[in-house]
């Protein structure tokens, strides 16, 4: 369901030179498939996810999800596509601090369809084991709970593809497996394809398909730089 072909991305640096980050000839994920993307820090994993999500624009190439060519959409079109087809879980959770857990889940629905489905939001919170904390603000929750809310939020619009960018990097080991299980189980239940970026070997080892970005990406000499 996800096809990338000839996707290139480089950034213009302050010194006027282009910094090449990505040159991906081919990258595919099947419907409902769950895979892990690994690679050393700064090699462009987040950049790739951003391009898939339409947050960043590729310099060249095609990105297709269910026959929709993301790179050819207008910005507003990419916003809509992102809202409806995609779920995104961030390393830093990125819950909005002003809103309760339930409201954070509802936010995604608001942007996608303009209306909210409180029942589904509650079901999802129930699914991640936080139905009792629906009214709590993120600041009142542990990091593990926050990330579970973020997972529920990412799934709110029944996406076709879930992108998870190091979802357990900031979570304590006890919660790590819980969250991975949660993501994998719900994706399986709802037939959602999953691309999960991780540094944790014990997480990667649980997946059938593990791609090293260095293998996918023809750009090899990106500077090793710590970027979240």
């Amino acid at each position, binding site marked *: 369901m996800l096809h990338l072909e000839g996707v290139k991305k480089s950034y213009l640096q302050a010194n006027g030179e282009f910094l090449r980050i990505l040159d991906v000839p081919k990258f595919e994920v099947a419907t409902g498939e769950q895979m892990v993307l690994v690679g050393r820090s700064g090699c462009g994993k987040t950049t790739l996810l951003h391009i898939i999500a339409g947050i960043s624009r590729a310099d060249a190439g095609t990105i297709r999800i269910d026959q929709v060519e993301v790179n050819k959409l207008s910005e507003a079109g990419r916003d809509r596509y992102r809202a409806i087809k995609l779920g995104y879980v961030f390393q830093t959770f990125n819950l*909005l601090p002003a809103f309760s857990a339930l409201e954070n889940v509802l936010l995604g629905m608001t942007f996608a369809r303009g209306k909210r489905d409180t029942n589904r939001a509650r079901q999802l919170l129930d699914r991640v084991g936080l139905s009792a904390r629906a009214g709590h603000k993120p600041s009142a929750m542990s990091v593990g709970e926050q990330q579970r809310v973020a997972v529920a939020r990412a799934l709110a619009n029944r996406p076709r593809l879930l992108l998870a960018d190091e979802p357990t990097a900031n979570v304590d080991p006890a919660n790590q497996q819980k969250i991975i299980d949660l993501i994998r189980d719900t994706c399986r239940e709802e037939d959602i394809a999953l691309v999960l970026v991780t540094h944790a070997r014990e997480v990667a080892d649980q997946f059938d398909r593990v791609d090293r970005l260095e293998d996918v990406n023809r750009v090899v000499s990106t500077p090793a730089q710590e970027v979240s």
Partner: protein
Amino acid sequence: MSLIRIAWRSIQQRGLASFLTAVSMALGVMMVVAVLSVHGVVAKSFRNNSSLGYNQIVGARGGRLQLTMNTVFYLSKPVANIPYEYYLEFVPEEERRAALSHTLREELHAAQWETLNTAMAIDSQHGAGLAALGSQFAGELLEAQGRQQLDLERGGKFSQFTAFAIPVCLGDYFGPFRVVGTTPDMFDQLRYGPASDQAFEFSAGRNFKRWTPEHGYFEAVVGASVAREMNVGVGDGFSPSHGDPEGDQHGDQFKIVGVLEYSGTPNDRAAFINMEGFYLMDDHAKPIDTGELDEDTAAPPGAAAPDGQHGRPETEPVVQSLPVEQREVSAVLVRTSSDIFGMLMADSINKSNVAQCVQPIREITLLFDEFVGPVQLALLVVTALICVVSGVSILVSIYNSMSDRKHEIAVMRALGASRTTVMTVILLESVLLSMAGGVAGWAGGHALNTLASDQIEQRTGVSINFLSLAPPLENLDLWGMGPIIGLVSPELWLIPALILLAIIVGFLPALSAYQTDVAKSLGS
């Protein structure tokens, strides 16, 4: 989650900053409301007082506005006077004849005929009955003719046009307050209020009388503010000072018999004395070459009483205070029996060289238009500036928060919010803040009005309550938009104006939200 809810949540999130911003807006709006209300009260009291209960002022030729200011508001430099006899042109024959029975010429005439009659009576004792009768007839005829020539036997020229005419004599002061010499008609006949149907009420005592056995011609009535500020009441006495507030005292002559209820008219701030008593004060007789007669006729009442043997007389003395020729009035308040008559009368008076006739309402309206228009504009500009300053504080508050919020905005965008959506959220925030401040300020301003309403009503007669809106700014001239702006209360313009202002000041932060680089801001 509506966008408004989202905006509201961000406002709540920055609780203190939002609160302070809204407070600054509230203070601005409160000031606007207060300024508009004060202006409204002033305009309203001006208008209330411009339905005066009379439609013409007759006074000395000269400044029309000055005459109006003097007579209606008891303000401005004193005006010249007109002869008392001119006032008598507004009264019917009977009253005029009665008044003129105390002229010098009438008394001279009467004295002459008395002498003549006495002579004839002595004569007739000697002559035959018929001849005596004949000469008596002839004598009476001649006397009547003489009276005709003295212009005593007719109604006032304008009396048939006149519903009432009230003379006023100005120029004296009681403390800082103007003293008005007039007749009891001032309160018996004159009505006030927008429909000119409210009678002047007395909070204590009664109206003064033309003459009473107790006080003679020396009764007075004081306005509510005069009573309060001079600390006087019924039973107290006072002496008008001449010419200016620091002028010389006339002696403690007038007894206060009544205190007026607050009416919100200039009468609150004036003292009223019986005109007959006024004429009896020193300096008030118009100098005239009548030597000894002046001495006689100006004798105080009581002393000249016909049955003065046991102290105070029970009826008004026959001898009047001051002969008509020596009297002057500052102005006559005239209510004509119809507007047409009013115009005819004004024309006729203005053609003469003695007096002028002004329509006070016209003068007041002209004055109001002339200086109130610019004042309204200035008020509007000042209040608009206050709101703009408050608006800028909203701008600063939201804009300062933008650097912190780039990340949140990026998250919303990553969740699928479009650029216009996040821009709308920021604009809504600005609008909500200014509306919250606006509503609070409006309520605060009106609460202040309510608190002050008693005072305002006492001082101006304008009653306001919590919900009364400032009246439209009718005299505004703003690039020809005055008539449109003047259609409704300026307070109603506050709502669209605040929304517009909020959108303008919210635009910069909203634009910054619009331009947020999602990929970059997500990382931070």
